[in-house]
């Protein structure tokens, strides 16, 4: 018997038994109340992503029938009838049978209704024990949302042209506040959307490599941090942030950032949750990878955000051999004028038997993990042959 059936039947039987122990017409009112609590519990779990949305529709219908049963029974009891009316018994039987046969079929039986959209935004997000990492398709640039049940974190906000898209994506995931924002480095394709993000959401802290850039985009970003009163912290290798629920973010780079080479100032991080880990590289290149390797940090990760949009200047063999990812994500714009990702990089991942996802082909890419298993969802499908082929020059 599947878990949904066990929970549902046990709750129903429990409610009836408790109701039967009480004397008088109030027992049926109690039954209704217990159903209310039962429904609330299910909805809460569903809101956190604990159940397929269609299960909730079915549960709502079944419970509506059961509550109607209780009401009919209650009214009959008050009218002096000792036995439950036939209508109530029939409705209860219908509710039981419907639950028994439809719960396990819910996700095939009904269209994919977006129940989460009906719920208050604060109830969206991830299930209690899950960690979700969203690689948002912002064209040529980076923006990554990390969500736990209690915290939201953003790495980069894409180019300026994608600021609104990032804000809308985060709102769609129920984000109201960002506990931590990491600006990997000052290039426009990574921080261009930050002002939009700071305007739309409360942000507790920004981690930044702390090196100067002369663009107005960077100046506006600093002004927004000042205006919004956001805590500003210079990121350094060796620092870490505890995201709660056993989830930790370690900062692996930079050590000595310089404004003369902004990519080399990239904040590189490793997110770990039980058996599962992610590495985020910003635009770090092979020299920075070497520096990280020399530091001796734990690098092994299941998912690697490929450095610098798949440029041949990143993802050195030595680095890949240490990370040994199962999955790699390349954040890259379709038809970009840098010809990213480069074929040499794709060849390295193919040779290492790494499953590659590309935002230009797959759109938004979302990893969900409970710390043991990893589930990957993409906005679009792509052929393996296309994934390992660089754009024509």
């Amino acid at each position, binding site marked *: 018997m599947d878990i949904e059936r066990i929970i549902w039947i046990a709750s129903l039987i429990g409610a009836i038994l408790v109701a039967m122990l009480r004397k008088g017409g109030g027992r049926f009112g109690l039954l209704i109340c217990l159903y209310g609590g039962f429904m609330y519990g299910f909805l809460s779990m569903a809101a956190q992503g604990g159940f397929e949305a269609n299960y909730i529709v079915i549960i709502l219908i079944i419970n509506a029938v059961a509550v109607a049963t209780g009401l009919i029974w209650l009214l009959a009891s008050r009218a002096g009838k000792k036995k439950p009316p036939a209508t109530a018994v029939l409705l209860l039987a219908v509710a039981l049978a419907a639950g028994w046969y439809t719960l396990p079929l819910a996700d095939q039986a009904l269209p994919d209704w977006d129940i989460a959209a009906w719920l208050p935004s604060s109830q969206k997000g991830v299930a209690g024990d899950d960690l979700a990492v969203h690689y948002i398709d912002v064209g040529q640039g980076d923006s990554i949302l990390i969500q736990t049940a209690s915290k939201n974190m953003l790495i980069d906000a894409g180019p300026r042209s994608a600021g609104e898209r990032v804000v809308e994506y985060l709102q769609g995931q129920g984000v109201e506040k960002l506990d931590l924002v990491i600006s990997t480095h000052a290039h426009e394709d990574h921080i261009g959307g930050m002002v939009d993000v700071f305007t739309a959401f409360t942000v507790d802290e920004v981690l930044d490599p702390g090196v100067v850039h002369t663009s107005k985009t960077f100046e506006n970003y600093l002004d927004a941090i000042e205006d919004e009163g956001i805590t500003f912290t210079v990121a350094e290798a060796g620092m870490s942030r505890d995201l709660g629920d056993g989830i930790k973010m370690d900062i692996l780079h930079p050590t000595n950032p310089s404004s003369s080479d*902004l990519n080399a100032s990239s904040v590189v991080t490793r997110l770990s949750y039980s058996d599962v880990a992610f590495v985020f590289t910003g635009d770090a290149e092979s020299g920075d990878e070497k520096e990280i390797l020399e530091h001796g940090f734990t690098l092994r990760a299941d998912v690697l955000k490929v450095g610098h949009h798949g440029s041949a200047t990143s993802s050195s063999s030595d680095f890949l051999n240490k990370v040994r990812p199962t999955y790699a994500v390349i954040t890259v714009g379709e038809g970009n004028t840098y010809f990213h990702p480069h074929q040499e990089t794709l060849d390295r991942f193919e040779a290492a038997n790494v499953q590659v996802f590309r935002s230009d082909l797959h759109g938004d890419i979302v990893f969900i993990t409970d710390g043991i298993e990893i589930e990957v969802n993409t906005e679009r499908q792509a052929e393996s042959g296309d994934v390992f082929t660089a754009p024509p020059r």
Partner: protein
Amino acid sequence: MEKYTVDSVRDGRVTLLLRRDESVKIVLPQAQLPGVQESDIISAAISQGRVEDFKIEKAETQAVKVKIQAKLDKLKNRPGN
């Protein structure tokens, strides 16, 4: 000539941001802008993807660097950080 910020110099490409509206981005082969470095502010005449003339505005670059560095230092040293 228009003024641009050199946002990045990577993979044989220079990415320029138009200073009066940095939502305008131009990516050019590095060979067309010899000697430019990240964070340089330049004046350039660009027509149909080709640089006809350009000049690195060294004094302006330095002045902007100093101004933005001061903002950065203020954030770094702000109480509560």
